């Protein structure tokens, strides 16, 4: 099966081509089946290959697809690397991708762009698989750019809405800034190691100087910042919620945004060798985690809450990467993919039931009306809040234990983040599903549970969110941590947890207590005292206003980046282009025209005059020549 690994990206590509070229001609159900079926086929192959890899001792499998670029010193083969890391990501992408495809058939059933949607979705899966499977930075970069393109296409899926289009452009441009970092890292790697293939580069990683390695690591991280929405490039992700909800679940929660985590885990050699780059990653991750969590507490759009939660959780993962806890970060990627995809799909189901309403202030009391959605979303919320024995608890706890070992302040930031996470997630649950219904009568009448093809993925993901923790049980109690050993081959410099059992147990207890306290606080506030989010802005206290407006980051960016660029552009357009450049071009034209009309008068049509001028000219030439010679 490992030899057939190139089939995994091939199936979604075929699905993309069929839907792209014949989508208009085939029925909606057929195009949905082709799209989901192609991802399911990839999922099956991924599972089979995964078990083959598990049983084999040969962990690094390189599959050469074809020679791609051959030019002088530069050889870039189109190669796939199938090792425990890519194997695991393949399972997440194709598995969750399949569930979300199935869900989309229900969610998008009445949309006119149905086949277009699946075309983009299949293309996205293809590029994502390319990113994960590539054996060199260039193949991964193709996937990296491809997922950015698909993200753009899907955010702007409803392209008739200008705001959605702007959100799509914003995501694309923000990502481009990060992509430049990735590209610079690739160039630096090639100039220093004369190779860009993962296997070769990591073997001779130590041959470069420490400062070069730090530079490479930081450039890779800048790429990751863009793709994984870290400070200061995170603002596109909340806006990306303009896309259809399955897109938010697949691209902006479960898979694409974890590409940054993937590339850093893949390049962990560089980070292990550079303390500076690692600290930088950890600090940026910690600040992002806390920052986004604070903003999340006062959002009223159900998808925006989840978006900020995603940014915050990604920040936690980077915090983990920064302290060298690579396997814990991958573990958290996995559980996060389960519960965040679940939460997004659940939110989609709520929006579906509410007829497009996304504001949680217009919801309430939905608990009895949409039971399956409620129960599955509650499971997701408990999982993300870090309540044992749900999956989020184990991954977050392992990650934070690693952070505690390295740096107590960063650990405190992480703890604060998870406390806030539990708070705002339960705030969302309480406001959405409890209390009295606050929407219109029409909406109340319209309320209905989603069809089975939408609830089925919810149930599967809820089950995974419950049991996902089994992948990485805490080792200090004597339980097996499968995830940790699974990635042994990929992570070059191991970083085992050295804390005493008592400390670990205390940390665990503290995490449980703080999550419980936070949930209790949310309960008191929104259930007992029935506090409702403020409707009018002037009722806010100043700090609430600051948070509600997302710390004015968008406005700050607008002032310090967009406005100056606008001014400079209009200067260049109005002065440099319109006056200087056009002036030169028009000046040349005018000069030729005026001098032409003056010289034209010599052409009077009298042959005798021409001949006389010729003779005079020749004589003058001869005279001048003679004078020059003498």
């Amino acid at each position, binding site marked *: 099966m490992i030899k057939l690994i190139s089939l995994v990206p091939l199936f979604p590509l075929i699905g993309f081509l069929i839907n792209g070229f014949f989508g208009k001609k085939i029925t909606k159900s057929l195009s949905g089946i082709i799209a989901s079926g192609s991802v399911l086929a990839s999922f099956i192959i991924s599972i089979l290959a995964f078990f083959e890899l598990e049983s084999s001792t040969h962990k690094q499998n390189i599959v050469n697809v074809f020679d791609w670029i051959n030019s002088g010193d530069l050889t870039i083969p189109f190669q796939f690397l199938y090792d425990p890391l890519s194997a695991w990501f393949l399972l997440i992408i194709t598995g969750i991708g399949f569930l979300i495809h199935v869900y989309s058939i229900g969610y998008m059933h009445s949309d006119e762009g149905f086949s277009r949607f699946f075309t983009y979705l299949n293309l996205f899966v293809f590029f994502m698989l390319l990113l994960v499977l590539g054996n060199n930075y260039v193949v991964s970069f193709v996937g990296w750019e491809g997922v950015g393109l698909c993200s753009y296409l899907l955010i702007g899926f409803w392209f008739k809405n200008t705001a959605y289009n702007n959100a799509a452009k914003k995501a694309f441009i923000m990502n481009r800034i990060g992509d430049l970092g990735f590209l610079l890292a690739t160039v630096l790697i090639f100039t220093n190691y004369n190779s860009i293939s993962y296997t070769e580069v990591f073997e001779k990683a130590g041959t470069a100087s420490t400062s070069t390695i730090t530079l490479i690591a930081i450039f890779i991280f800048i790429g990751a910042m863009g793709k994984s929405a870290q400070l200061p490039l995170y603002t596109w992700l909340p806006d990306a919620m303009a896309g259809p909800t399955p897109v938010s679940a697949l691209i902006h929660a479960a898979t694409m945004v974890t590409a940054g985590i993937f590339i850093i885990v893949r390049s962990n050699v560089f980070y292990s060798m550079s303390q500076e780059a690692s600290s930088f990653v950890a600090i940026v991750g910690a600040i992002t985690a806390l920052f986004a969590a604070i903003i999340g507490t006062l959002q009223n759009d159900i998808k925006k809450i989840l978006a900020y939660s995603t940014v915050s959780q990604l920040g936690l993962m980077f915090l983990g990467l920064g302290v060298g806890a690579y396997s814990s970060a991958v573990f958290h990627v996995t559980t996060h993919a389960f519960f965040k995809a679940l939460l997004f799909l659940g939110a989609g189901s709520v929006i579906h039931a509410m007829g497009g309403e996304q504001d949680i202030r217009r919801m309430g009391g939905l608990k009895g009306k949409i039971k399956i959605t409620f129960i599955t979303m509650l499971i997701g919320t408990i999982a993300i809040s870090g309540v044992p024995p749900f999956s989020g608890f184990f991954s977050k706890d392992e990650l934070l234990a690693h952070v505690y070992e390295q740096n107590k302040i960063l650990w405190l930031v992480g703890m604060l983040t998870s406390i806030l996470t539990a708070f705002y997630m339960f705030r969302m649950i309480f406001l959405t599903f409890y209390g009295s219904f606050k929407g219109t009568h029409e909406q109340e009448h319209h309320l209905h549970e989603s069809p089975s093809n939408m609830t089925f993925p919810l149930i599967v993901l809820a089950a995974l969110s419950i049991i996902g923790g089994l992948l990485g049980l805490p080792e200090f109690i004597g339980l097996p941590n499968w995830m940790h050993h699974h990635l042994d081959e990929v992570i070059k410099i191991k970083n085992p947890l050295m804390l005493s059992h008592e400390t670990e147990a205390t940390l665990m207890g503290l995490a449980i207590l703080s999550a419980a306290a936070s949930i209790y606080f949310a309960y008191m506030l929104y259930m007992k005292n029935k506090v409702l989010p403020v409707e009018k802005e002037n009722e806010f206290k100043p700090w609430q206003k600051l948070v509600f407006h997302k710390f004015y980051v968008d406005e700050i960016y607008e002032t310090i980046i967009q406005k100056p660029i606008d001014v400079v552009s209009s200067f260049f357009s109005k002065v440099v282009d319109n006056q200087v450049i056009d002036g030169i071009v028009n000046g040349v034209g005018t000069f030729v025209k005026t001098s032409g009309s003056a010289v034209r008068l010599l052409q009077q049509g009298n042959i*005798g005059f021409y001949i006389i001028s010729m003779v005079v000219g020749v004589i003058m030439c001869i005279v001048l020549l003679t004078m020059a010679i003498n």
Partner: protein
Amino acid sequence: MINGISINYYILLSAVLFIIGAVGVMARRNSIIIFMCIELMLNAVNLLLVSFSVLHNDASGQVFVFFIMAVAAAEVAVGLAILSMIYRNIKSIDTDLLSNLKN
């Protein structure tokens, strides 16, 4: 000295012939006269070439003259054809009437 005559006379004769030709070309309006004047200028040059060829005992000057004569014959053929066409069109060979390109 060529046959007892100084080279200066040859040069003078050529120059006179050439100037007569040039002035003719410039001053006359009859196309055929202009044509003949051009031939006169060519032959003035030919004369000069032959004289110097003999003076320097170098045959290449005379070879040149043969070429010029051949080219001039061809030129006459083409030029006279053009002239007859002009005559057919404007019933005249006065060069001053040929000013249709003006404006």
